[in-house]
């Protein structure tokens, strides 16, 4: 069983549009939905589809991801044969270097296919929220005698410029492929899920590696090339929920959708469990006088204040008088008495002083440092930041990781930036 299928998961991207959330961790390691990491969805899809041999390609800030995956135990990927292996960039081989693009990352790891007796190679992205049975993809691929099958989903018209958009003929064969087009000819977007015939993949990657001017990327170079050459490249239409939580706004929206009456993903489906590292925390403590509504609250939280429309990760403490509204608060962040958080994303281990207000006022001035990522009214507070008592932080503000109380000289206006000891900006 374990040796018949193999998947590469690309988990090395920078994820810069997620701003502070992926400043110090790879995007697949960003916490999501109150207890998971983004990559849990892809890893769980693999094992729930019967794929127990997985290589995870890392490059950008991998520590948090490596610690999370560890030996692969929650996914039953700690195995004698197969299991999960971290594939880091390395020195020492003839072609050794950093991964240049998605195709290059696989090319540099072709050695892992050498002794694996698989007919196909599944290439996945560790960045997406979806539950998919890859067996359907394998079935489609074989029925169509495809050389490569690309899983596709329909995206809204105003988002086509963020994805690889493709056109198909009536049989589902791809006839056009454009990466992030200005004027799209269809709404079918590549999900970054590719199933290749093994031998063809090897041949194509070797060709691509030698091609001058190639950026060595599946979406930008390899797939458009194959389509142009008339290779049997097929699109498999995926009709369920799929979300690229690539921006702060989409991360926030996707999280809050889980609170709706009919959430797009059933996290409690016993037939498709999303596996993750266990946190060894006691049940949630709802204390006397607390008010909690329309929220997801994970084990280890202690709540005496008010929580509405929010997602709380393990160990968040909300004392009497404190309020969390329409926000996402990650592991072990602690609010002071009467602190109010409104429309904010608070990373792990943040301390919010008594009477502090995060996300305050009607001023919607976009963020001074990254207006392109932070203009919809959200505030972001980086991991381990300490906010002083009674401080007011306006909308679209950004407070860097590990900022201490001494960094604040006055209230932070809308669009303001308080950078930490070390920052990517």
């Amino acid at each position: 069983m374990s040796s018949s299928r193999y998947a590469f998961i690309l988990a090395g991207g920078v994820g810069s549009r997620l701003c502070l959330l992926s400043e110090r961790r790879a995007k697949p390691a960003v916490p999501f939905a109150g207890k998971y990491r983004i990559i849990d969805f892809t890893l769980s899809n693999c094992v729930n589809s019967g794929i127990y041999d997985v290589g995870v390609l890392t490059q950008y800030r991998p520590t948090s991801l490596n610690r999370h995956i560890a030996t692969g135990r929650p996914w039953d990927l700690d195995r004698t044969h197969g299991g999960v292996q971290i594939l880091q960039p390395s020195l020492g081989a003839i072609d050794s270097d950093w991964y240049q693009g998605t195709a290059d990352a696989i090319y540099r790891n072709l050695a892992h296919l050498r002794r694996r007796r698989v007919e196909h190679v599944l290439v996945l992205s560790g960045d997406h929220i979806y539950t998919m049975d890859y067996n359907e993809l394998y079935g489609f691929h074989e029925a169509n005698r495809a050389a490569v099958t690309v899983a596709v989903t329909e995206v809204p018209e105003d988002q086509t410029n963020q994805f690889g958009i493709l056109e198909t003929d009536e049989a589902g064969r791809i006839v056009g492929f454009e990466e992030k087009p200005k004027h799209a000819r269809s709404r079918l977007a590549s999900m970054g899920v590719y199933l290749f015939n093994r031998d063809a993949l090897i041949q194509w990657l070797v060709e691509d590696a030698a091609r001058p001017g190639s950026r060595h990327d599946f979406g930008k170079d390899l797939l458009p090339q194959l389509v142009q050459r008339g290779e049997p490249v097929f699109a498999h239409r995926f009709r369920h929920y799929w979300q690229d939580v690539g921006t702060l706004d989409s991360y926030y929206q996707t999280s809050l959708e889980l609170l709706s009456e009919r959430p797009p993903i059933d996290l409690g489906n016993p037939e498709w469990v999303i596996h993750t590292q266990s946190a060894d925390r006691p049940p949630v403590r709802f204390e006397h006088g607390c008010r909690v509504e329309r929220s997801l609250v994970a084990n280890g939280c202690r709540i005496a204040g008010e929580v509405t429309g929010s997602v709380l990760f393990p160990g968040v403490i909300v004392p009497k008088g404190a309020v969390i509204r329409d926000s996402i608060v990650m592991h072990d962040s602690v609010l002071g008495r009467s602190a109010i958080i409104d429309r904010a994303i608070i990373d792990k281990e943040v301390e919010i002083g008594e009477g502090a207000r995060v996300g305050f006022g009607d001023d919607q001035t976009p963020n001074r440092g990254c207006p392109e990522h932070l203009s919809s009214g959200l505030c972001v507070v980086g991991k381990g930041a300490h906010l002083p008592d009674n401080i007011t932080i306006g909308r679209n503000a950004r407070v860097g990781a590990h900022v201490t109380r001494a960094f604040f000289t006055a209230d932070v206006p809308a669009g303001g930036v308080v950078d930490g000891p070390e920052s990517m900006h």
Partner: protein
Amino acid sequence: MTDAMALVLSGGAGERLGVLSAERAVSAVPFGGKYRIVDFVLSNCCHSGIEQVGLVTQHVPTSLHDHVGAGRLWDLDRRAGGILILQPYQTRSQSGWYRGTADALAQNWDAIEERRPERVLILSGDHVYRMNYRALLQTHRDRRAVLTLAVARVPAAESHRFGMVTLDRDGRLLTLVEKPEHATTPYASMGIYVFEYEVLGELLRPRPVDLVHDVLRPLLQSGERVYAHEFSGYWEDVGAVGSYYHANLELLAPEPRLVLHDARWPILTRDEERPPVRVFEDATIEDSLVANGCRVHGTVRHSVLFPGVTVEPGAVITDSVVMADVTIGRDARIDRAILDKCARIGDHARIGVGTAPTDPAHAWLEGLTLVGKDAHIPAGAQVGRASVIGIGAHPEDFASSTLAPGTRTPNRPWFQERS
């Protein structure tokens, strides 16, 4: 790493937990919103550096085995040492049901001998507490004792529940009286013993039955060095419905005596792989512990909810313990009840109605209503206080929709035909 091997006694029949332990060992009864009782002792072992643990089982051990598995959760899945299940077994000459605690140890002495520990730490699998056994073992070594008992101070009114011990100024044990009505000492034996390995081996040779009567007492009388180690933390024997219920609800106090969220001493248990608690628009939750996987619409007050409990709109749960995957129907009322796993409470049903009977036969329930695992309470049914609904009960067990206080319905095997 210590040189002691722990033996956890988990074989008792646990009649005082009624329907909760009819089909599982007391140690495997769920506790505290996500744990099993045995998690406390095994976590104590793990955090005290004890790497060899024998688990003595006899009474319906399946769910205990399921839970403990290879002991990985407590880092007891080891190449050498680790966890060892000590079950009753047959030999050519005899069938070896355990006649008592000492007999259980004697029958397994050959297995213990193979591990060659210097000391044997005997624990009960029915207690909830957080204790560093290193301190106990240190007292034992310092006193050069052959036997050291852990003791706790208990209120005079409760001495009838315990073996009470008197000590001299050095902590040496003078007398032991079982369950006295009036005690002259505040010290209760916790049922936690450290024996010198060689000494215990000798004492078990004549095949004694009960550890206290046939081993401990003669040892004390022979004048050997028997000492006490005082433990001042929270400790509770939860092997009876009343103490089980109160220990659960005590976790809801503003400052509970049993701390569950100490990151340096986590209570380790099997991960349920459930999503975070989902609290809906129409929910009210107060003074409660609610575990991952619960979905709450209605009202939950002063209660403990285990993973995967669904509370439908309008339902009200008060002062109750609700185990994993129970569903509470619309507008149902649950008051002072313990609902076992996977029970289904129909819409508008009421559990815990009226006044509990005062006769001695129902005293052990302390007015609580028990609903067995997989029981299905039909919509609109009224279940009187101090009733015990059997495991797997189904609507046909309800001749009328009202059960008087103190009613019992039979347990039904899961494979029994349902028409």
